[in-house]
C-alpha cells in the first residue's frame, strides 16, 4: 500500500468539503479522480500533496504519517502537476524539467551529470527531447503540459498527483496526455492520481476511479462503478443517462408526438436515429411514416433523398 487516507476530512478553514474519506492507492495504479464541480477534487489533491492542511484524519505514505514530513522529504515522494499557469519569461523546456531536480541539488541548484541524465530521460519519456531548448512560451499547450509532466517525472517520486492535466487541451492532445500517463504508469510503476472531467477517457484508461459525489467518494474499477450504477447515482440527472452497453453519456431528448419507423442498413440507420432523437422525433417499429436507408440514399414517402439533412427537412416542414 503506497498511500492511504483514513477518515480524512478536507476543506478550507471552517468549511468542510468532504469528510470520512477512506482511500487507498497502490504501487503502479493510474487513478482518475472525477466528480461534480465543487465536490472537492482539487481540495483532495491539494491536501494529499500537502499544499493545504487536512481538517482531520490521517494520510500515510508507506505507513509513515505524511503530516510529519518536512518539505524536502515530501518533495521526494510527491510530484505535482497543477493547473497554475507557468508564464516565465525565457524559460526553456529543459530548464523547466530540470526544476524537478531541485529537491536533490545543493544550495546552488547546480545539476550533476546524473541529474542531467535524468532530465534527458524524462524528456525522452514524453517525446520532447527535440524541443528541449525551446522556450515554454514558444511551444504548444500540449507540449508545455508534457513538459510539466516531464518535470514531475524528473522529480523521481513514487507518486505523481495531477490536477486536471487535460484541461484547455484539444481532443488529440487530451487523448495523447491520457495515453502518455497510461504508458508511464505501466513502464515506470509510478502511481498517478489525476483529477479529470473526461469521463469517457477515464473509463477507458483508469485502473481505479475515485468518484466524488456531494457526500463521500465511491471507489472501484471503472467497470464495477458503471455496472452498479454509481455513475448515474453520482451525476444523477434527468437530462442524461449512461448507456449500459458502452458507458457513453446519452442525452435524454424531449420527444414530441411525431413517430417514424426506420429500416435499412447500419450505420446509416444509426446516425439517422440519432438525428431523429435530437429533433424530438420518436423511432418506433410500426409507425405510419417509414424511412428506408439503402446504399447511401434515404427513401421516405416515395421520395429519394441523399442526406439526413434532407430527411429532416421533409419531416419537419
Amino acid at each position: 500500500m503506497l498511500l492511504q487516507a483514513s477518515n480524512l476530512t478536507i476543506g478550507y478553514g471552517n468549511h468542510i468539503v468532504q469528510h470520512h474519506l477512506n482511500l487507498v492507492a497502490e504501487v503502479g495504479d493510474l487513478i482518475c479522480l472525477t466528480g461534480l464541480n465543487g465536490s472537492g477534487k482539487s481540495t483532495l489533491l491539494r491536501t494529499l500533496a500537502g499544499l493545504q492542511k487536512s481538517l482531520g484524519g490521517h494520510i500515510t505514505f508507506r505507513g509513515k504519517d505524511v503530516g510529519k514530513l518536512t518539505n524536502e522529504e515530501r518533495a521526494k515522494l510527491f510530484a505535482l502537476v497543477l493547473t497554475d499557469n507557468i508564464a516565465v519569461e525565457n524559460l526553456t523546456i529543459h530548464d523547466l524539467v530540470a526544476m524537478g531536480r531541485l529537491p536533490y541539488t545543493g544550495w546552488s541548484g547546480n545539476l550533476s551529470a546524473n541529474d542531467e541524465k535524468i532530465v534527458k530521460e524524462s524528456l525522452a519519456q514524453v517525446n520532447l527531447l527535440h524541443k528541449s531548448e525551446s522556450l515554454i512560451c514558444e511551444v504548444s499547450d500540449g507540449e508545455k503540459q508534457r513538459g510539466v509532466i516531464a518535470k514531475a517525472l524528473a522529480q523521481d517520486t513514487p507518486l505523481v498527483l495531477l490536477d486536471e492535466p487535460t484541461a484547455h487541451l484539444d481532443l488529440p492532445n487530451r487523448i495523447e496526455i491520457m495515453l502518455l500517463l497510461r504508458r508511464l504508469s505501466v513502464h515506470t510503476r509510478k502511481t498517478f492520481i489525476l483529477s479529470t472531467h473526461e469521463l469517457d477517457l477515464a473509463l477507458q484508461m483508469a485502473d481505479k476511479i475515485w468518484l466524488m459525489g456531494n457526500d463521500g467518494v465511491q471507489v472501484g474499477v471503472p467497470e464495477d462503478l458503471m455496472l452498479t450504477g454509481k455513475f448515474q447515482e453520482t451525476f444523477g440527472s434527468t437530462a442524461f443517462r449512461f448507456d449500459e452497453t458502452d458507458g457513453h453519456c446519452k442525452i435524454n431528448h424531449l420527444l414530441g408526438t411525431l413517430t417514424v419507423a426506420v429500416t435499412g442498413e447500419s450505420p446509416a440507420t444509426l446516425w439517422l436515429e440519432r438525428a431523429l432523437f435530437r429533433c424530438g422525433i420518436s423511432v418506433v417499429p410500426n409507425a405510419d411514416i417509414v424511412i428506408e436507408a439503402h446504399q447511401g440514399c434515404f427513401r421516405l414517402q416515395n421520395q429519394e433523398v441523399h442526406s439526413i439533412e434532407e430527411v429532416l427537412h421533409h419531416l419537419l416542414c
Partner: protein
Amino acid sequence: MNRTYKNGLLFTGLLIVATIVFACDIVFGNVRLPLSALWSDDVLYREIIYNFRLPKALTAVVTGAAISVAGLIMQTLFRNPLAGPYVLGVSSGASLGVAVYLLAGSLLPIAFVQSGWGLVISAVIGAVLVLLMVLGISFRVRQAVSLLIVGIMFGQIAGSLVTILQNNSNPDSLKLFVVWTFGSLSAVSWTYMQVLVPLVVLGLFLTFFIQKSLNGLLLGENYARGLGINIGRTRLLIIISVALLAGTTTAFTGPIAFIGMAVPHLVRGLFRTSDHRITIPGSILCGATLLLLCDLATQLPADGYTLPINAISALVGAPIIIWIILKNK
C-alpha cells in the same frame, strides 16, 4: 555546453564594458580631467579622483547593482514584471523618515541635524519600519499578490504623511527635502562607504544563498512548495535582502527610479534565461553599468552644473521598459 560558453562570453563582455564606463565616469565630470590624470601624481588630480570621483563611481556601482538585484528578486517573488526594488514601500518609507527628519527636525538637537548621519539614519529607520510592517503582514497573507498591494498601500500612506509634512514646513527645509528626492551619488564619502558596502555585500550574499529557492518560485508558490522549498523562510529572506539592498542604498543616495525595474528585464533578454544563477550576477553587472551611464549623463550640461540622477534614471529606465513591452508583443 554551448550555452555555458555563450554566457561566459557575455559576462566577459559586460565586465569589459563596465570597466570602461567606470573609467569614463572617473575622467568625465564637472571638472574635465585628462585621461593621464588616472595615473598622475598631481595633488589636485589625486584629491578630485580619490575623494570625489572614485567614491561617486563606486556608489554608482554598488547602488546600481543593489537596486537591480532587489528589483530582480521582487519580480520573482511577486511574479510581476512591474515589480521593482521599491514596491514594498522602501523608498516611501525612507522619504517619510527623511521628511520627518528634515521638516519636523526643529525638535531634534542641532548637532544631530547637522551631521550627515542624521539623514541616513532617519531614512533607514523609515524604510525599515515600513518593511517590518510589510513583513508582519507577510506572515498573515498567503498570496504574494496581496503582499504587493499591502506594500503599495503602505507606500501611499507614507506618501500622504510626507505631503502633510511638506504642507506645514518652511521653504528652506522643503528645498532640502526636495533635493534629497532628486537622488545623489556624490553624497557618499569614504566614511559612509564603510557602512554602505558591507551592508550591500551582505544583501547580495543572501540572494546568492537563496538562488535555488528563487528559481523554484519562478513556477509559482504551489509548484515551489511541491519542490520542497520553504516558502515562508524564502519570503522572509527575500524581504531582508531587499531591506539591505534597496533600504541601505536609498538611505545614502535617495530614491533612484526605474533602474531596478528595467535591469532584470534587460538581463533576462540578454542571456535568454530566467535562471537566477545567471540573472543575479547579470543584474549586478548590468545595474552597475547602467547607473554609471546615468551618472555620466548627469554631467552632460556645461561645467559646474549637473542634472539630478533620479530624473536621468527615469529618463533611461522608463523607455527601456516600454521598449521591452513593445518587443514582447
